[in-house]
């Protein structure tokens, strides 16, 4: 599971208010290189919840991201930032671990890189 997916995952259990983001409890992390694509990254900046990305990356051991994303106008020329963004968004993989709902403590397991986000029948 990459952080781009984590940035979207939400604990959509009935009655839960604080469903996003999920806290990452990693057990195994691997790094897989991916081709650098600045256009894609710029497209993603608008979508990404920055805090969730920073916190997620930190929990995976990557602390290079700034607390705030830079201005979109300067993004074009800020390759060092884009490289960090690229690395955290696309190259860090949670292979084994859990995604935890902050409000309910509900854990969603991640095995072999695959999150299991099935809700129980009494939860939805």
């Amino acid at each position: 599971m990459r952080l781009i997916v984590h940035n979207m995952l939400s604990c959509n259990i009935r009655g839960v208010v604080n469903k996003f983001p999920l806290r990452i409890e990693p057990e195994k992390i691997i790094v897989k290189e991916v081709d650098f694509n600045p256009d894609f990254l710029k497209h993603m900046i608008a979508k990404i919840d920055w805090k969730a990305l920073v916190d997620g990356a930190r929990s995976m051991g990557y602390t290079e991201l700034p607390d705030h994303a830079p201005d979109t106008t300067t993004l074009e020329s800020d390759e060092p930032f884009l490289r960090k963004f690229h690395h955290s968004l696309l190259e860090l993989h949670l292979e084994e671990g859990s995604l935890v709902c902050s409000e309910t403590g509900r854990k969603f397991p991640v095995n072999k890189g695959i999150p299991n986000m099935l809700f129980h029948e009494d939860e939805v």
Partner: protein
Amino acid sequence: MILDVLRSIRTSSSSSTTTTTGGRIILQSFGFYSVSTSKMRDIKVKSDSRELITSSDEEEEAAAQIIESVSIREKEISSSSLSVKSTPEIEKKYVHRVYDAIAPHFSSTRFAKWPKVAAFLESLPCGSVILDAGCGNGKYLGLNPSCFFIGCDISHPLIKICSDKGQEVLVADAVNLPYREDFGDAAISIAVLHHLSTESRRKKAIEELVRVVKPGGFVLITVWAAEQEDTSLLTKWTPLSAKYVEEWVGPGSPMNSPRVRNNPFFSLESIPETEVSTKEQKADNSPFIGLESIPESEESTRELKETKASIVEQKEESLEALKKSQQEYFVPWHLPYHRAEVSGASASALATGLAKKDDRKGAVVYNRYYHVFSEGELERLASRVGNAMIVDRFYDKSNWCIVLQKAALNQD
């Protein structure tokens, strides 16, 4: 729309080549093209498209012949929200377990990319995040190399197959997507909704697809049509019969509401098909229904009678609707013996009656539940989703298809 000048196109192989270097796995899994085009291509179908006559891109096994003209009409009642929340038995047994058991074989037959789906995906802007809900073996994930695909499916074995191909996937339920709102640029649901056994679940799945895409984002949905192009292919479909009303009205159905289930005097467990067992029942019209030994207590007699009467009514209506338009089917899947042994799931499937052996064909036969859609049904369902508009609709290769667009944000 203005087409930007093509920049140099960087190609990379979409096959994943892995080499390990000191613990790091180098994987080329995305080939992003540096092409900027923002034109949305028209995907209108040619009116006489008959490229391949198969019952659909999905099913190479199904032959066509309607055996009976019995049918079940969908019964929506006020407790339909319950059927949305809990997975009906018929789906657990005749969709989930089947796909889990047949996953590798199924995947090996799912390789042809349906041109209409490919066209939709290729029309999306570069860098789009595309959500595939019910992605199966991941056939369409990565089809447009300039986009980022995230797939989910309820079948873990199928998701494993996607994951082995380097795709970004998760296990999830299309009726309750674990995504926050407005994230995706587009979503697709290819041959999925017809496996949902109630109208409210099918509608919920459409609502979920719309919810998870951005305002203005597109959703493509395809489902099997009741109107099959080649009716001779329907020979092996089994229409849902009275025997399976029991399955269908298992947990998760309106007939299994807590009020009924929690009533200690009421048991739906053994509903004989042919017995007529209680006086309260309208015996004449429903030879298939029996409500077994329901003792009456003084306190709850009236309530019990009302409950039983309404249950009987619902079953009768279901069976009545059965006779009107046949849209509920079991479609077989033949899993060759050597495949069945490998998967291992078939032994218990055979033991429990979930699957049968066909020695003549050397295969274990599973049945998959389908609610095939009649003309206009998908549109009617989608039009009830508030914040989306139908922007395209077509019939292609025995599938009904629509494209929805989520309402854009209001600009004050």
